[in-house]
């Protein structure tokens, strides 16, 4: 290269890349010069291999079926438990299966025949018995029941069947469904798998014996790595090469790649996209599950959380590879693992910024979010959106009629109920009201604008923590305190929502999920922010009248001290919900609402019609964050405190599920979503009337979510609306009015 060609190559555009390259070389040099840092990076290989394996499974899924599987980590964890059950106890566990005889038994019990019993579906299938073991320190150490090869073989078979079941029962029916339905179904699958494992094995960690050799490999300069981690890395590299070859050189792989671009392409090659999706589901499930089996011993134990939550860095790795390149996915997964480990080390160095004198907690967990943001900034609009044969739009977003009188009537009726019902029902109503507020925020953002957010609870938490740590700490009175919290939530929501200007659909879901994880670990769990003593929230009070749920109250009629919770807090919640409902209804009716629906329907068409797509999205993020912030403040008042776990990433995911189940594109859907939330009216019906143990509520919610995503994307509220519409039609037809007299709801446009 001569001087002139070098000059022509070195354009201003390339300066950042050159600077980054030089910095990279310097950093690598510094790291390699330090044996501690080299050791940290090497130790990150094992974790990175597992992240890469889950990311490969996600990529495989996406290539084959267009689904970004949020349950991939849960599948890996589930695979680990299948193997554990077989190897240790010789038992194959079964998920809870509906027993058609149970209602008969229940009726017989109600009729007084308490001893009447019909066959139950087994919980475990015993395939081998553990041999006698020895007792040591009061603990029975039993020998494994099944050889490694047999347990592995059966586990792989089970995983293959699971993959087929996921395809045929869940994702095949959703092939033409909107992205949101697929995300929600995979969230449902996540919930179900975790709930099944907790039911069958409890949440306590189970010790797992090694499969791969564990002897440490000693490297130069005192660096060592357990050999099982090295083997895991080699296995994941081999799998990556295999996948790469399969997708590059075989007709099946080419067809899958074609289908990932455009399903018609696969049809031209003579492959059914449905068949390709099925095969890829089996492959991805077996892949994730097998690495779960191999990784559990490397983590020394298996529990329902650890591997499951690797979904966050795995999604980051898959996104970095644009859900397409297996080799880049591998490199990204290993890189994230090594970088996380390195950050863990250097964040404790004296030169690294500190929080309260200690390393900033959650910094390593924030890494995937940073990577995602960098990727989006660099190439946001080039991220893929998969081409399918036909896509059904998001559910209809109805324009409410007569909402003011309906809201007033329902509000007044709820206020009446708050004073009439027993305390546990009053509490259920309050919980549902707070849930409705969070669901309303999702109606605006996801239902109206189509932006999938998995961080609404994190934004609610920002408000709750602001209320506790800023407003209460500085004696800022009610209602300025909660409003301040909501404003801070808006600021954070807007910042986190900036990537939404560049991405959409499932990519945005990944971004917001990573943002929620980061907020949870870096902010809520950070003692510098949330404190070590917890974050209390003072009871709300106005003109000296305290109306927190635990404040004493006097019965309005007849006097006397009433039972807690204080119904006046419920009244406050009702008023807040009514105001927000009317506000959201008015947004839907207004020009802004029409702009939102236009953006949801087709961004290019909306822009062509003069709608500011960016402005509308930013506005929606802001409004939704404000509503979520109000919900967070209400939640703080409700419990008298705020906690990191309550406002984390998983609750955000579960709240999207509640909102979807209720009906994400309508205000009435948010009301139903609120009824469904944990501790809400439906849960109370389950436990108080149907006497269903609390241990099943999460499982039932997950199953309900999957079924609803498949059968009725409009949610419960949509089904009710359809039912009402049907009755109207029947009435109309009996009055000799033709079908066309009553307009059918159609996808909203400008």
């Amino acid at each position, binding site marked *: 290269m001569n001087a002139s060609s070098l000059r022509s190559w070195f354009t201003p555009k390339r300066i950042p890349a050159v600077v980054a390259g030089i910095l990279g070389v310097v950093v690598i040099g510094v790291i390699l010069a330090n044996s501690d840092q080299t050791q940290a990076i090497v130790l990150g290989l094992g974790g990175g291999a597992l992240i890469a394996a889950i990311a490969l499974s996600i990529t495989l899924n996406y290539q084959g079926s267009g689904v970004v599987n949020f349950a991939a980590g849960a599948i890996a964890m589930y695979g680990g438990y299948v193997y554990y059950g077989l190897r240790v106890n010789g038992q194959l566990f079964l998920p*809870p299966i509906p027993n058609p005889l149970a209602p008969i038994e229940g009726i017989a019990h109600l009729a007084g025949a308490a001893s009447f019993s019909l066959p139950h579906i087994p919980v475990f299938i015993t395939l081998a018995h553990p041999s006698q073991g020895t007792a040591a320190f009061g603990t029975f150490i039993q020998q494994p029941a099944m050889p490694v090869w047999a347990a592995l073989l059966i586990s792989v078979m089970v995983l293959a069947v699971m993959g087929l079941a996921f395809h045929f029962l869940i994702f095949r029916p959703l092939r033409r469904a909107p992205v949101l339905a697929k995300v929600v179904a995979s969230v449902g699958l996540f919930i179900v798998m975790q709930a099944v494992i907790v039911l069958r094995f409890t*949440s306590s960690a189970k010790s797992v014996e090694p499969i791969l050799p564990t002897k440490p490999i000693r490297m130069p300069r005192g660096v060592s790595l357990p050999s099982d981690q090295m083997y895991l890395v080699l296995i994941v590299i081999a799998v990556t090469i295999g996948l790469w070859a399969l997708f590059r050189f075989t007709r099946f792989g080419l067809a899958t790649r074609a289908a990932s671009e455009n399903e018609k392409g696969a049809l031209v090659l003579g492959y059914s996209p449905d068949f390709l999706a099925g095969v890829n589901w089996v492959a991805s499930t077996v892949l994730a599950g097998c690495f779960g089996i191999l990784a559990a011993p490397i983590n020394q134990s298996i529990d329902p959380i650890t591997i499951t939550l690797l979904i966050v860095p795995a999604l980051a790795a898959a996104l970095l590879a644009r859900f397409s390149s297996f080799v880049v996915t591998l490199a990204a997964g290993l890189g994230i693992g090594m970088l996380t480990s390195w950050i863990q080390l250097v964040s404790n160095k004296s030169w690294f910024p500190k929080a309260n004198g200690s390393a900033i907690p959650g910094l*390593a967990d924030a890494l995937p979010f940073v990577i995602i943001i960098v990727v989006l900034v660099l190439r946001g609009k080039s991220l893929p959106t998969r081409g399918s044969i036909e896509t059904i739009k998001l559910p209809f977003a109805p324009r409410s009629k007569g909402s003011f009188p309906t809201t007033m009537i329902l509000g007044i009726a709820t206020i009446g109920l708050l004073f009439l019902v027993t305390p546990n029902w009053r509490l259920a109503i309050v919980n549902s009201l707070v849930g409705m507020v969070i669901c309303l925020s999702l109606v605006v953002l996801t239902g109206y604008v189509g932006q999938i957010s998995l961080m609404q609870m994190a934004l609610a938490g920002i408000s709750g923590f602001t209320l506790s740590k800023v407003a209460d700490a500085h004696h800022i009175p009610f209602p300025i305190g909660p409003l301040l919290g909501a404003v801070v939530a808006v600021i954070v929501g807007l910042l986190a929502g900036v990537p939404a200007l560049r991405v959409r659909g499932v990519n945005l879901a990944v971004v917001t999920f990573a943002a929620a994880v980061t907020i949870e670990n870096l902010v809520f769990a950070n003692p510098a922010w949330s404190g*070590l003593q917890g974050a209390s929230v003072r009871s709300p009070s106005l003109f000296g009248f305290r109306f927190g749920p635990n404040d004493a109250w006097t019965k309005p009629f007849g006097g006397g001290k009433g039972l807690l919770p204080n119904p006046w807090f419920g009244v406050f919640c009702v008023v807040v919900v009514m105001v927000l409902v009317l506000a959201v209804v008015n947004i839907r009716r207004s020009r802004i609402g029409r702009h939102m629906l236009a953006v949801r329907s087709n961004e290019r068409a909306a822009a062509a019609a003069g709608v500011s797509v960016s402005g509308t999205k930013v506005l929606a993020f802001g409004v939704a964050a404000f509503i979520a912030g109000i919900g967070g403040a209400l939640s703080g008042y409700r419990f008298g405190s705020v906690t990191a776990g309550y406002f984390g990433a998983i609750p955000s995911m579960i709240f999207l599920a509640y909102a979807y189940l209720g009906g994400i594109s309508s205000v009435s859907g948010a009301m139903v979503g609120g009824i469904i939330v944990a501790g809400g009216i439906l849960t109370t019906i389950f436990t108080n009337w149907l006497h269903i143990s609390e241990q099943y509520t999460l499982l039932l919610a997950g199953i309900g979510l999957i079924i609803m995503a498949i059968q009725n994307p409009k949610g419960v509220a949509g089904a009710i609306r359809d039912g009402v519409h049907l009755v109207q039609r029947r009435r109309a037809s009996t009055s000799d009015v033709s079908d066309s007299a009553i307009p059918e709801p159609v996808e909203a446009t400008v």
Partner: protein
Amino acid sequence: MGMIGRTKVLRALRTTGVVAATGLLAAACSSGGSSSSTTTTSGGGSSPSGSINNSLALTYTGGKAGAANSSLAPVKVGYVNQQYGSPSYPENTDGANLAVKYINAQLGGVQGHPIQLVPCYVATEEDGQKCGTQFLNDPSINLVLTGTLVIGNDSLYKVLSGQKPIIIGNGLTVSDFTQAAAQSYQPGAPGVISGMAKWLVDGGLGSVKTVAVVATNDAGATASAKLLFAPPLEAAGIKVTEVFISPTAQGADVASAIKAAGGGTADVFVPITPVQGCIAVADAIKSLGINPKVVTTGLCFGTPLIKHLGGTFPNGWYFGGYGVSYFLPPMASVPASEQLALYEQVVKQYNPNMEYTGFAGPTFGNMMTITQLYNKLGTGATIAQLTDATKNFAGPQFGIPGTPVACGKITAAFPTLCVGQMGIEQFLNGKWIPIADAYNNKLINAFG
């Protein structure tokens, strides 16, 4: 009916199907069609098998030998535990249920009345408030016992807030020890962690200049490390390096954290993690090829660690606990150790498969204490009487050697605490050795 109408009917039917399927599953769930697996553990490793020597238990509870009269009205105790979710602590419930079975079958219940647990389980924050509301408004319940709660505990305490007495079982978060209107009869994390720090400062391990800490980044462990452990060491001029790991940290992350904290070079290495973290620490130490002096808490020596190591414990480790051990033989001069042995006998007789280490024992002990209080006050004990009795309970607490039991007077920082003494044992060459505990009469006064 037109095409659209048919579609709607189908959709309505499908929605009905969702409800029906969910209902069917619910029916299956409520009819007990499934169960959770339990850890296979044989309780009472160090105690002889055979019938239970009830005299010790009867002396403690003040009851009469024999079964309670099931036709009499039960004495109800509200019981809250974190169960079913992730994380959950079902071993507390095993301990509480075991105690109720034993008390009603062999200790005459409360003055002949059977004692009855009214459980309320917590898996979400909302549940804590629900349980508080339920017990606050239930006139048949005058006393509430908790197992372990890391979710919903604050909500529970805020609802009950001095209106009904609470005995906090195995507290893990700061909130569990800062309640003025509740009592904890175990030294808990504040006592054990502070005691470990005091022991190191006082030269328990000789001259210590540097301490490396790896703690889980959760409310309990963070507070333990930052509030209780590091300050006294730093005040004594000992350099403390703390590294926090995610509760979901993988094995490699733990190894990396040990490196970052300087676990291999510090004079003492202190992991403050639950048992799965301890397993990871034990393996990481092996793979890193380091040989630190490890001082950790009793949370480490649970069954999973024993199983993982093939029936043993990490050699040379020091464990901070309540001052008596499941793994050391009882001594007549240490009543708490005999009570612990009695508990292990009860485990063998009533539920040999339960996880008897960890939180089950202290919860069993709390039920024994509650029975003692009710036997003294009578079955009609009022809320005020029970509030006084729980506050003024002077001990000894069943299975806990620390004295005096003086609620609210141990340390101003943790008004809930009633006991401030703890002990340390070492596992060395296959044997447990008392270092500073009740067996050698060297209990450490954590706040003294």
